[in-house]
């Protein structure tokens, strides 16, 4: 029993590491074909992501929102739902957080921040919960509905930020009125990394406990395993779906609140940069395991952080990091076939895979899409 456990644990560690190595090797071939020196590229990536304190903090900063938005996909995955609505939940969470901050403008910052967090979580939770309701009561595929809701949420966000909620002083970059210096979410003392990173850590831990160690979590996994059996066992499937989706949206909404409070101090279009979609990637790479989301977020954050150096010193275009992420994803997926085969002859039981096995569950899941990215950058010119 123990050796089987050990074998499985070892495999769970080795497979991703092996996939990472293979991905880096393939990436090296790719950049060599593109005319760069692969070893130099590796060095620059290391330098940009982990080598110095500055790089490390850059990586952690980038990982902060990813942990939360990845949970938005990972939590419903236990139930066999493929939700990609992190982006929409994030922006609406940011908007709600700003509204809360304005409503309580004169209160103690602790109160304001708590209210902001609650408002952000509530708004995000309601949005994805809506998708969950559509799914469980009307059978509307949640992947497509959350994708559509992303676009709709962004449209709503822009409408409010540029219209009714606009700060008259923010002439050339439409933003809401700021939440105030006093309410800013500061850095963890001694570092440059803001508290949003800790939110992510805590959320991942709580999600792990919830989804893997409580009755709720096991009930959810049962629904993900076989819906009919779950129904026959008397599990409240509707309620489980709704709660899981609400929780998922709440984490993404919290990410939006953290971005407002820690980075921008206001809500504007700079929030729409694809954190939601990158979170979906992280969730898939982490195979939906909440604890694994932490190292994967850091990895993906590191890859993104090194992009700048790749541009400036290796003279590779910024899309290079996307290519690496794509290769990584493909290799990790392909490595799934080796699971249960390399360290032992017995077919080791795996976690319930949300989408592979089930007919009724799942849906097409658009993921890291550049679709909203047109709006990420710029103002004026």
């Amino acid at each position, binding site marked *: 029993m123990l050796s089987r*456990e050990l074998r499985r*644990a070892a495999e*769970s560690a080795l497979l991703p590491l092996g996939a990472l190595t293979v991905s880096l090797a393939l990436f090296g071939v790719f950049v060599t074909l593109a005319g760069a020196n692969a070893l130099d590229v590796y060095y620059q990536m290391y330098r940009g992501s982990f080598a*110095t*304190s*500055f790089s*490390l*903090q*850059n990586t*952690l*900063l*980038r990982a902060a929102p990813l942990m939360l938005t990845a949970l938005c996909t990972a939590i419903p995955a236990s139930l066999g739902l493929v939700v990609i609505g992190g982006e929409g939940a994030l922006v609406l969470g940011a908007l709600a957080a700003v509204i809360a901050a304005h409503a309580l403008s004169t209160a103690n910052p602790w109160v304001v921040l708590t209210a902001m967090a609650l408002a952000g979580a509530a708004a995000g939770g309601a949005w994805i919960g809506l998708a969950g309701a559509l799914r469980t009561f009307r059978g509307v595929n949640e992947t497509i509905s959350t994708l559509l809701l992303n676009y709709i949420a962004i449209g709503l966000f*822009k409408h409010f930020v*540029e*219209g009714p909620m606009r700060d008259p002083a923010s*002439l*050339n*970059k*439409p933003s809401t009125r700021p939440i105030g210096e006093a309410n800013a979410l500061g850095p963890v003392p*001694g*570092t*440059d*990394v803001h508290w949003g990173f800790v939110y992510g*850590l805590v959320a991942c*831990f709580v999600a792990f406990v919830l989804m*893997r*160690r409580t*009755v709720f979590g*096991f*009930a959810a*996994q*049962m629904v993900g395993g076989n819906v009919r059996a779950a129904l026959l*066992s*008397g*599990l409240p499937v509707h309620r489980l779906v709704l709660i899981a989706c609400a929780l998922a949206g709440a984490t993404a909404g919290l990410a939006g609140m953290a971005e407002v409070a820690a*980075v*921008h*101090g206001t809500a504007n279009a*700079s*929030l729409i940069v694809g954190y939601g979609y990158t979170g979906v990637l992280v969730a898939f790479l982490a195979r939906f395991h909440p*604890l694994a989301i*932490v*190292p994967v977020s*850091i990895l993906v954050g590191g890859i993104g952080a090194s992009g*700048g*150096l790749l*541009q*400036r010193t290796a003279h590779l*275009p*910024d899309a290079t990091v996307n290519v690496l992420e794509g290769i990584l994803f493909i290799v990790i997926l392909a490595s799934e076939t080796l699971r249960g085969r390399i360290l032992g002859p017995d077919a080791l*039981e795996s*976690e319930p895979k949300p989408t592979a096995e089930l007919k009724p569950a799942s849906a097409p899941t658009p993921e890291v899409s550049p679709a909203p990215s*047109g*709006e*990420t*950058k*710029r*103002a*004026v*010119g």
Partner: protein
Amino acid sequence: MEAEAHSVANRRAQNGIRYAPVPTVVLFIATAALLLAACHKTEENAPGGTAATGSAASVAKADAPFVVGFVYVGPKGDYGYNQAHAQGAAAVAAMPGVKVREEENVPETVAVQKTMESMVELDGASILFPTSFGYFDPHILKIADKYPKVSFLHCGGLYQEGKHPKNVGSYFGYIDEAQYVAGIVAGLTTKSNKLGFVAAKPIPQVLRNINSFTLGARSVNPKATTSVVFTGDWSLPVKEAEAANSMADQGVDVLTMHVDSPKVVVETAERRGIFVSGYHADQSTLAPKGYLTGAEWNWAKIYTDYVNWVKAGQSYPHLLRGGLKEGFVKLSPYGPAVSDIAKSRADAAKAKLMEGTLIIYSGPLKDNTGKVVIPAGTNRPQTDIELEKMNYLVEGVVGKIPS
């Protein structure tokens, strides 16, 4: 039923656990703590480190190349906003003893803060030109406080004396002067008297361009009107093409735009066989028949000036703005379709603007709802701060500012 589910769950718990719980949790907490500690510990060395780098940089400056960093929010080759800045960067790179580092596609989030920091720490940059408007607040302000020896020069003109740190400066050009002259050319070239403007967002700088273009056109052709379509964002090629096409459907025969990359609008206009006036950079190669002229930036002048000032250790103006007169903006060469009359009228206006004798925004001026926005007898020269808050469309513009 519930009990059954529960016991099934228990069995699952025993068989399905991948990691033993306690070591996992411990590992998790330990890793998190280690990471934060790593940041903290090396951060302690950082202040000394930064100072060391700073002084090392200034000592090395004498013989090492002077490093200037440019940050773009989009691709450098976009035939538009970013390319105009990149052209300025190229002028800087041509200066002796100066090295340029560029990074493109940097969004207006912490990413740009880290990019700037990285350019200072790892590339040893002494001047940074973060070129997107949205980089200023909070990003530049945060990083500028951290590196007082580095100059941060922002495109957008938001600097406020006393409020913002001394190592920050901002610059901008009154490109609407060039749009005014372009409007004159458009007004004299149009046959249908319908002009069109593809705009991104209804912010003051865009509205100012629309208005200046219209005022220029109507100064020579009082029957001209300008239709406006707002696409909603800075770079939406399909929407821009749609806007251009739907305006052409309406009979518009001269288009201009204020979007990040005018390429799509210019090419669409050429395909529809109508005229177009460019923006940001020179797009005449894209529309050999229909390109009339264009309002361009001339960042090279500002950039090389700044580099020289900082290199010599001189203090530089923190709020640098200028138009045609100062050479910060220019007009593209006239295309083949521009008549001689149009050329002479346009040149005359250009000369007057260079002298400073032509005030574009002078009263009485009504907006397109009939309200008086500049009373009679009031002149608003280009430097007038009121113009920066523009929130109206002048008479002759067809369309409303979306609310």
